[in-house]
């Protein structure tokens, strides 16, 4: 069947036609995904960078042109207004600070909750391991938006937790949990926990059990074995899991918008408001550029962790 297609006249003609332009089948296979990603992933960042140096104005599109034709040629209008604005208005710096803080602590909480789970799954036997792993993956397949939404009903003033505690007489007044940083932490850890567990599991499942046996045979207590063998060997998994949580959380919008209060200032939300509410595209672009610069180091760490994991694989 395939042979018939390959040997068919139209296929041969197309191949010859493309070869005329120096495009072999190999070149074409490389070119298609590369071009798509260049146009729709890389070039957009250049556009963002460009617009971050423009000035906001009431026009369509709502920013000034960087290069404008004049009588005597071209005028180049580079403006650092947006960046100046970011530095001078304390709100933006505070938002970057609190995004990094929230991302850091929620990554830590996700690690503390996720590590024992990943370890337990990696050590459990065949059938159970598959079932538990499926239970970790399943939330990936259910709507993220709706899972965050589920927490509103649980945490709000007349929500399930308050109703339960009030009816049991444990509290007399409803606890304020919605629209606080607490709710944002819960929502983030809840949503990103599978991203932490999966790389940790992938790492821990490769851990050679005989090393642990040797350690305990030599008289090490379980905690010593954990600290001197399991933990150091799982560092690439820890790094990968932490970065997979930390990086997207820094720019998170939905969770602070739904669960956070007016004083939960995360940079993703600031960017959103700048764009949709203030229609200030240059400032939104500058916010994005600075966020990218902040994330360069974590992204490089992630790349390193994943290369490390892959090398382990090929080493075996």
């Amino acid at each position, binding site marked *: 069947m395939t042979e018939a297609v390959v040997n068919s006249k139209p296929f041969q003609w197309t191949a010859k036609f493309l070869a005329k332009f120096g495009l072999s089948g190999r070149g074409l296979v490389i070119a298609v995904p590369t071009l798509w990603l260049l146009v729709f*992933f890389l070039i957009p960042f250049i556009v963002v960078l460009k617009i971050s140096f423009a000035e906001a104005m009431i026009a369509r599109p709502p920013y000034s042109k960087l290069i404008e034709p004049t009588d005597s040629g071209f005028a180049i209008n580079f403006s650092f207004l947006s960046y100046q604005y970011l530095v001078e208005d304390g709100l933006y710096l505070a938002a970057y600070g609190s995004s990094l803080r929230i991302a850091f602590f929620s990554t830590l909480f996700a690690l503390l909750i996720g590590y024992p789970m990943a370890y337990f799954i990696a050590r459990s036997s065949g059938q159970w391991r598959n079932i538990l792993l499926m*239970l970790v993956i399943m939330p990936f397949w259910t709507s993220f938006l*709706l899972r965050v939404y589920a927490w509103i009903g649980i945490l709000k003033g007349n929500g399930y937790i308050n*109703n339960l505690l009030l009816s049991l007489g444990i509290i007399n007044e409803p606890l304020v949990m919605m629209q606080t940083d607490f709710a944002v932490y819960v929502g983030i850890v809840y949503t990103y926990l599978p991203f932490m567990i999966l790389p940790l599991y992938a790492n821990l499942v490769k851990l050679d059990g005989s090393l642990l046996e040797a350690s305990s045979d030599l008289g090490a207590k379980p905690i010593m074995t954990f600290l001197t063998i399991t933990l150091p060997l799982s560092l690439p998994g820890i790094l990968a899991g932490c970065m997979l949580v930390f990086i997207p959380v820094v720019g998170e919008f939905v969770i602070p918008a739904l669960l956070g209060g007016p004083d939960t200032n995360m940079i993703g939300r600031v960017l959103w408001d700048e764009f949709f509410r203030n229609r200030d595209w240059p400032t939104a672009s500058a916010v994005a550029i600075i966020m990218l610069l902040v994330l360069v180091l974590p992204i490089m760490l*992630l790349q390193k962790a994943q290369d490390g994991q892959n090398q382990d694989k090929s080493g075996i």
Partner: protein
Amino acid sequence: MNNKFRFLPIATFLGFAFLYVPIIVLVVFSFNKSKLVTVWGGFSAHWYGELLQDPQILGAAWISLQIAFISASLALVLGTLAAFVLTRIGRFWFKPLLSGMTAAPLVMPEVITGLSLLLLFVAMEAMFGWPAGRGFTTIVIAHTTFCLAYVAVVVQSRLSDMDESIEEAARDLGAKPVRVFFDITLPTIAPALMSGWLLSFTLSLDDLVIASFVSGPGASTLPMVIFSKVRLGVSPEINALASLMIGVVALGVAIAAWQLLKSPQKSKA
């Protein structure tokens, strides 16, 4: 030792409870008769009926399903090509760039992806007159781009696990590269292609942030409608919608698990 054995199962159990209790509560209360969502007022499927008569939600769901189908299919082709290039084709000078560009969309904060694509579309429209306005097409392009990365990761890991000697054997026997790909490689990685497509489909169906940036008037996806309703508070209709979507996924996963459990026996026999 004893201590450790008690700690791990309990921690794991609590972790899973944390992951699943909110979903269970949501499903249970979707059958609540009362309009006060969090107070139980008796069993009723009333809100499911309301949901199925809400033209706004139904319309948005239809748009979202179409976008998800097209994006997932495009992402499958492009992502598989990218994965193939990265695992099977030797060095070329921009390979590290391609590798970076396929991995980066996975972790890129959605607000950045959304903003950058929108600005690109605006600039392209100003320069070439295409895409004229924003809506269905621009959302499809945006979703294809980030789903492509997920497909590439899934397919890449399958390709690098696969035994390359079968492909070599086919080549040695004189099969052309195209034929080796379609007759040997593709059937072997078919399960990965399936899960890549399904993952893309659900990711596209679920995306709020990127779609909000690149959408225009008239193209509201389901998450956009849900978000605008949810911002006003908890609604029994959304509970019903969430339960329906979770039900479909649970069914899908159950079928997939059943197939998985069935297949090893088949291969043994």
